[in-house]
């Protein structure tokens, strides 16, 4: 039976309907499209004009439903699931991160300051930037 389920990505949180049990999460293709941007077409899952074919042995499709873990594996993206709390985190692929870093293009980000005001790295184009990550821990 489909019930609310939370799909978390690095930059987005979506509420979908999904069947979760026996270690599996099944959702319909429409939910995958709305939440994750990947549309199921005859040629595979497509986004931004590019399609990833679905090999039969990948077992992504179960009847009309999409198996979330198999879908993540197809995209080579990491997936953490909590069946009991009905939530999953679909992370960024290692390949994607590695390629971005090797390009030497500094990955962009927008984060808040103490007052909640957002700041983007891109605002500092034209300046030399010393980016320092620190923590209180």
């Amino acid at each position: 039976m489909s019930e609310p389920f939370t799909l978390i990505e690095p930059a987005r949180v979506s509420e979908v309907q999904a069947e979760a049990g026996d270690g599996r999460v099944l959702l319909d293709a429409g939910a995958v499209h709305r939440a994750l941007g990947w549309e199921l077409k005859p040629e595979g899952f497509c986004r931004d004009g590019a399609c990833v074919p679905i090999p039969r042995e990948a077992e992504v499709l179960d009847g009309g439903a999409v198996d979330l873990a198999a879908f993540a594996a197809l995209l080579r993206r990491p997936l953490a699931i909590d069946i009991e709390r009905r939530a999953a985190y679909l992370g960024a692929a290692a390949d994607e991160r590695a390629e971005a870093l090797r390009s030497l293009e500094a990955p962009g980000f927008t984060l808040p300051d103490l007052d909640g005001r957002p700041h983007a790295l891109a605002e500092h184009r034209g300046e030399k930037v010393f980016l320092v990550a620190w923590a209180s821990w």
Partner: protein
Amino acid sequence: MHEELRGHGFTVISVAEDRGADDARPWIEAAKPTHPSLIDPLHTVADLYNMVNVPTVVWIDERGRIVRPNDVAFGSDMFKAIHGIEAEKHKAALRAWVRGEAQALPPQRARDLTRPPTEQDQLARAEFGLGFWLHARGYEEAAGRHLVRAGELAPHDFTIRRGSMPIRGINSMGPEFFKMAQEWAAQGHPYYLPLPEEEA
């Protein structure tokens, strides 16, 4: 450094890999920085740059290119006895680059020094992300499970292992941290990962 070099088309951007603004606030308010001081509870920057500990510093040029990838630098020599990294050395190199007196690293060298994440590193970040979300909703037991799992997947990633301690209700400067650091060192692993000495 920001005050000293800001006239040279330069800015510091600090990013706190803390669970929320309140943990970082006392430090930021005490330092009264004039540069952007940002809060990153979801470890967005750690994920994008594959940072595995703090402090981690990156030099980015006017065109938005990384000219010196993840390195370790300290503001002072207060803990030099522990990590052996001299603060002034990095500051001198930074000053020379900002003033245009020295080049940063050539692109190929910068690329070679880049440490890309593995699939398992990214799986650890997914477990961390889920753990943090569960914590934010008060599901502490489930959160703890995923945060611990994240640390097991990426034992070298202290933004996860130490950074999740406050979320898990553990003192990140207490005995559990020292035990973890000692075990890591006993296995022959470094706690900090600076660039090789010849680049320092």
